[in-house]
């Protein structure tokens, strides 16, 4: 087995497709995420962005297409526990809802330690040290790491989820609307933590979000999805400053900002509503 090139792609998705009954959720998506990079997948509900993330981590089975992480194919379900564990060490995911992603009876320290036991060969003392390191990286203190999750705020829980994901030492961290449910002042703290983590660990982010301002803060590149397909892609700054696709322009114009006046859009909602109703 060869070690993948440190600057090459850590995640490649080609012609990815998923259908639920007659509904095409993802219609041929291509993505490349480089080591240490940050790629945003932007879209509204029903765009297919979360389904793409779920296929990459193996929670949904693609109808067609190829997913390659760290040079290894993961388009089909893992055949063994060992294979599943190896995949877990390559790609980890943090979900949106910090209130349902932690076991209420398990302390953050124990949750992180459990992942270390599965994914590393550290002994008990080594694991304790690593738990403290990861807690420091996401800005949690010892008391918080020992507390019951119910005693922690949404922002603190989300940091626990990030620390737990990083414990597996993944090359890719998928963040699926991971800061969307947080209060503005807490969101800013977590966004700063994400910047630190990427700088210090070199982990790459696949950042799923509907929030263009947050996407600008976190990512280098972006793909814009609509109705299961990518309508625009490029460097985040270019796509947001000079969007080429009408839908990207519409998304950008819809973001509230100083002096913004909401407008009834030219592009009618009708299409999307009809789409939903036809199910």
């Amino acid at each position, binding site marked *: 087995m060869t070690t993948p090139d440190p600057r090459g792609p850590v995640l490649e998705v080609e012609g990815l497709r998923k259908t639920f009954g007659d509904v095409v959720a993802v219609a041929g998506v291509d993505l490349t995420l480089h080591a240490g990079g940050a790629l945003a997948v932007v879209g*509204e*509900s029903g765009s297919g962005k979360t389904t793409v993330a779920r296929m990459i981590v193996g929670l949904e089975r693609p109808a067609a297409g190829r997913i390659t992480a760290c040079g290894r194919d993961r388009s089909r379900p893992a055949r063994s526990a060992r294979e599943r564990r190896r995949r877990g060490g390559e790609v980890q995911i943090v979900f949106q809802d910090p209130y349902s992603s932690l076991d209420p009876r398990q302390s953050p320290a124990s949750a992180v330690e459990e992942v270390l036991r599965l994914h590393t060969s550290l002994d008990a003392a080594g694991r304790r040290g690593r738990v403290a390191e990861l807690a420091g990286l996401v800005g949690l203190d010892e008391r918080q790491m020992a507390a019951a999750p119910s005693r922690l*705020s949404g*922002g*603190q829980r989300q940091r626990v989820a990030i620390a737990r994901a990083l414990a597996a030492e993944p090359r890719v961290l998928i963040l699926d609307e991971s800061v969307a449910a947080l*209060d*503005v*002042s*807490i*969101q*800013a*703290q977590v*966004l*700063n933590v994400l*910047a630190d983590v990427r700088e210090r660990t070199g982990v790459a982010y696949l950042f799923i979000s*509907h929030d*263009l*301002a*947050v996407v*600008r*803060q976190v990512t280098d590149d972006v793909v814009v999805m609509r109705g299961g397909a990518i309508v625009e892609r490029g460097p985040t*700054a270019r796509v*947001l*400053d000079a969007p080429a696709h009408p839908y990207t322009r*519409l*998304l*950008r*114009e*819809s*973001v*509230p*900002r*100083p*002096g*913004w*006046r*909401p*407008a*009834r*859009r030219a*592009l009618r*909602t009708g299409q*999307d*509503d009809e789409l*939903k*109703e036809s199910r």
Partner: protein
Amino acid sequence: MNASLLDVEGLTVFLPVEGEERPVLRDVSLSIAAGEAVGLVGESGSGKSMTARAIVRLLPPGARTEGVIRYRGEDVGSLRGAALRALRTDVAMVFQDPRAHVNPVRTVGDFLTEGLRTHRRLSRRAAEERAVRVLDEVGIAAGARRLRQYPHELSGGLLQRVMIAAALLAEPRLLLADEPTTALDVTTQAEVMALLDELRRERELALLFITHDLELAAAVCDRTAVMYAGRVMEVRASALLHDDPLHPYTAALAAARPSLARRADRLPATPGRPLSAFEAPPGCAFGPRCAHARDACHERRPELLPLAGGQAACARAEELRGLLRDRNGKPVVSHDHA
């Protein structure tokens, strides 16, 4: 300015939690003139939703209230029976999650016409005609067909417009909109906001718009009140809130939000987390997180006082005016848009 439609004076609300009384609102004062749009902005636990619920007397059971709420001169706390029902017709509410406030097994038509038929004694046909007209007003075409549909057949944005139509059917003077677009996609949010703004102007409807988003409030509201830990920290013309905030909390809130126009090296994040009213220390509630706090701030709670055409509850508001900048000495992040 017109005489006040709504006057909230020194509103304090306690809720029973595990056998003890906990404050959720502390000395909230706020007024809305007829036809005026006021924003109520805050993070979770700030008390913005509780304020709206107190106005229409929809607080949870066991709540104890101090202070006075006057609607068109009448003390809301003293209303009973028919008078209370009349208040709840005149003051309509739209909530964040439309699906949680509609009966999933009744049609849109039943939902929209129930009030007209039982309270106003309109015939089914007359009620349905009115409902179709209002649906058209909120931008929903083919109203007659929609009346026969069930909530699950409509998208979130469409259903929220049905909720707004339901609120309008009662012909209210004041609309309390509690995060009405938070659960919607951004493009749908822009549509619903444009609609609310239009309807409000056409109908001379007063609006209390509750949100966590300063810019969203600024887009449709004349004035905005910023709440923190169950208190009003600042009231200001919405247009000035971003560039000339009076309270350090408002400035911190504006700066923490990333900009669409540029990436910040680091976001000026306020340490700690937003507090609820019952956790707030005796002095300024924002004191423990404030970069500008002095010893005196932790000792005495500042009152909401008039300043520069607005109001601020900050002991240092006057001297800090124009200096509310982040720790690096840079102005509060300005969001320029070409």
